[in-house]
């Protein structure tokens, strides 16, 4: 390798290129100016998207990572720029989203002096990053960034933050080229798979009369959708998903029995407490999935597949912990399990599904009452997209409804803030999702509350000309909190009544076409217009103010106590 002099900033950008990065979401500022100055010469190779707020930048990075299956890259400056990343880091940490965030920092000699725009970003972000590191010497940049990308994407993915002092960005050093990292001695991305637990799991499955598979995002993160499908198909087991597992298995697969948890489907929740073997694949038994833990699947033997050893036995004790990457462990299980006909067991799910359809789903999807429902809006979207769109959601009632009713034919199509429940995630994540999958339709379903948290990113849409369909389901309330206040706080509606601006005019001021629908008769055409429109479009649909999302497992209740009304 010929020896040449590079600045730290150039080395950062060279690292991005070597790692295959094509898109960066960011916002400049004083302490990161040298990197932005270098970026001026890299415009051809790196597409930098100027967002309107660093939180928007990191959510866009998350959306990008989720749809593209690669690492999202985010740039921000020191101080407020860096602290604005914290919500996104926490979101990416709990949802295992691979990110590399690069923040500028004050000159090394000013560290600890309360310099202008100095914050201790390393310590602030420590609990919400998989790894973070501060660079004060440019020579460290290539090796540290190689480590950052490796850590972000390998094992259980997660966000990594690299803080680079301004002097290191400016400093010239002898650049010896970039070597990717694939081994750190103190870091084990994948546990070693052992025969004993594979054999034990196979035996449990083969002896099971009523096995239930529950799967999470691990299947998607492990790029193991095919392996997973083969696994469930071989022995005919029903499979239910967590919110982040959604789209790993197409929604119309005959063995897909629906969603788990608080607003999940009737059958999978009730039957969790009736199955004899529960096989959890790449999921972490979140409390929103399990409901009351001491009444969760007590009758079942539990097999838990996870790449992260600390997840096994964390919330639910496993009878057999299958440590490893599910892309490798699933085929080993499939090899051992017997072909079985489980139609009788699947019929039990169908029975519950029928009851749920009659009591909950049909009245929501095809309402007879005058006001529109969120579910019928999603049904209309389904009918046109036929399950081929990427659905990005914010957080709240619309999120639960979209995840319950949207159709998906392919993986990496559902982008939502699962673990952290970050309102304001939807719009910026949708922008990133579109950059990560430019040939696909991206529909951002957002409530009137969450939209008002990050609507400044309409400016990013305007400037980049990216095509995102924004569907605001407006119930004039912070709907999910209102629902809880109705059910558990005697309808004491405390600060959930939220006013909205004129969204169509707002969009228009950003050069985005839009429409508002208040009556059912206009809905179909409005949805069609939105989806057929070239470029971004905002559709606001006025839905019933006090509609509730059901079924529901009330907090503190067991999954078998799920309420249909």
């Amino acid at each position, binding site marked *: 390798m010929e020896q040449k002099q590079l600045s730290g900033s150039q080395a950062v950008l060279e690292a991005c290129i070597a790692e295959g990065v094509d898109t960066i979401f960011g916002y400049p500022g004083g302490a990161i100016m040298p990197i932005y100055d270098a970026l001026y010469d890299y415009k051809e190779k790196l597409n930098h998207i100027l967002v309107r707020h660093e939180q928007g930048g990191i959510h866009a990075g998350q959306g990008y990572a989720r749809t593209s299956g690669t690492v999202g890259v985010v740039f921000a400056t020191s101080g407020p720029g860096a602290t604005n990343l914290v919500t996104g880091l926490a979101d990416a940490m709990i949802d295992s989203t691979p990110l590399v965030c690069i923040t500028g920092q004050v000159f090394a000699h000013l560290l600890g002096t309360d310099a202008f725009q100095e914050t201790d970003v*390393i*310590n602030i972000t*420590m*609990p919400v990053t*998989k*790894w*973070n*590191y*501060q660079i004060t010497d440019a020579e460290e940049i290539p090796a540290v960034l190689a480590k950052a990308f490796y*850590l972000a994407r390998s094992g259980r993915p997660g966000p990594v933050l690299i803080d680079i002092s301004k002097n290191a960005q400016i400093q010239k050093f002898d650049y010896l080229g970039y070597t990717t990292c694939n*081994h*750190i*001695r*103190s*870091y*084990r991305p994948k*546990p*070693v798979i*052992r025969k004993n*637990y594979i054999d034990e799991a196979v035996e449990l499955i083969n002896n099971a009369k009523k096995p239930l598979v529950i799967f999470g995002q691990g299947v998607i993160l492990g790029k193991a959708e095919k392996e997973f499908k083969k696994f469930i198909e071989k022995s005919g087991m029903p499979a239910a998903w967590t919110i982040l597992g959604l789209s790993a298995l197409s929604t119309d697969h005959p063995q897909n029995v629906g969603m788990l948890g608080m607003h999940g489907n009737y059958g999978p929740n009730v039957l969790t407490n009736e199955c004899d073997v529960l096989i959890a694949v790449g999921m972490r038994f979140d409390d929103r999935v399990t409901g009351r*833990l*001491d009444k*969760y699947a007590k009758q079942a*033997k*539990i097999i838990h597949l996870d790449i*992260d*050893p*600390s997840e*096994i*036995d*964390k919330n*639910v*004790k*496993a*009878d057999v*912990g299958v*440590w490893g990457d599910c892309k490798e462990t699933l085929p080993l299980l499939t090899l051992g399990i017997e072909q079985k006909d489980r139609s009788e067991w699947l019929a039990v799910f169908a029975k519950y599904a029928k009851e749920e359809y009659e009591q909950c789903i049909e009245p929501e999807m095809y309402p007879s009452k005058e006001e529109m429902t969120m579910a019928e809006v999603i049904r209309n979207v389904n009918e046109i997209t036929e399950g081929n769109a990427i659905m990005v959601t914010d957080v709240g009632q619309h999120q639960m409804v979209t995840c319950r009713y949207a159709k998906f034919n392919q993986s990496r199509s559902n982008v939502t803030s699962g673990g952290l429940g970050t309102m304001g995630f939807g719009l910026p994540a949708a922008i990133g999702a579109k950059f990560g999958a430019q040939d696909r339709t991206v529909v951002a379903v957002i409530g009137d509350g969450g939209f008002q948290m990050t609507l400044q990113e309409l400016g990013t849409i305007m400037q980049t000309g990216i095509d995102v369909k924004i569907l605001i389901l407006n119930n004039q309330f912070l709907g999910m909190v209102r629902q809880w206040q109705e059910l558990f706080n005697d309808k004491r509606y405390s600060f959930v009544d939220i006013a909205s601006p004129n969204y169509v005019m707002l969009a228009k001021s950003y050069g985005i076409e839009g429409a508002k629908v208040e009556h059912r008769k206009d809905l179909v055409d409005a949805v069609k217009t939105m989806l057929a429109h070239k470029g971004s479009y905002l559709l606001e649909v006025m839905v019933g103010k006090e509609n509730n999302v059901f079924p529901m497992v009330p907090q503190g209740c067991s999954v078998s106590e799920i309420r249909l009304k």
Partner: protein
Amino acid sequence: MSNNTEKQEYTITVYTENQVGLLNRIAIIFSRRKINVESLNTSPSEVQGIHRFTIVVMESRDVVLKVVRQIEKQVEVLKAYFNTNDEIVWQELALYKVLSEEITEKVKVERLLREFGARAVAIRKDFIVFETTGHREETNKLMQALEPFGLVEFVRSARVAIIKESAGFHEKLKDFEEREPGEEVIENEYLGKREAVFTM
């Protein structure tokens, strides 16, 4: 409930890379769960360049097991172990400062110091500093015994511990440096039987 939910003293031994900020990463694992750290020591280990943390907590086995896995998950942590007191040999060091005039005049004190195996590490006209090593009860006893004679200052170090059954880290480290590690590296000895639900 079983032993796994009863609180007792556990000593956690962590082998790590020497990296700025790692102490914090480990400390926040405890503070996030509102677990009080009774004692924490960092020092070199038997392997050059590898650091060794010794952390003492009063917790149940269930909690300690989860905490240890979270510690091991940190990128710069090579390996973490946890042991009950009967599985380790440990010591703490204590220093006691007393006024010379009190001590030199009272024969009783001299006997006391001998009894507790204390030795003088500094002798001055105005004060004397004694040192003992031992378990907490032992160093505490001398503190209590010296109190009536004007104990001016007292300080005790964190616990340092040797694991009786451990063969050290030299061989293990070789394993870690391999790309395809042996079974030792990722042990799943923790996998227990399914028991009562644990809530932390």
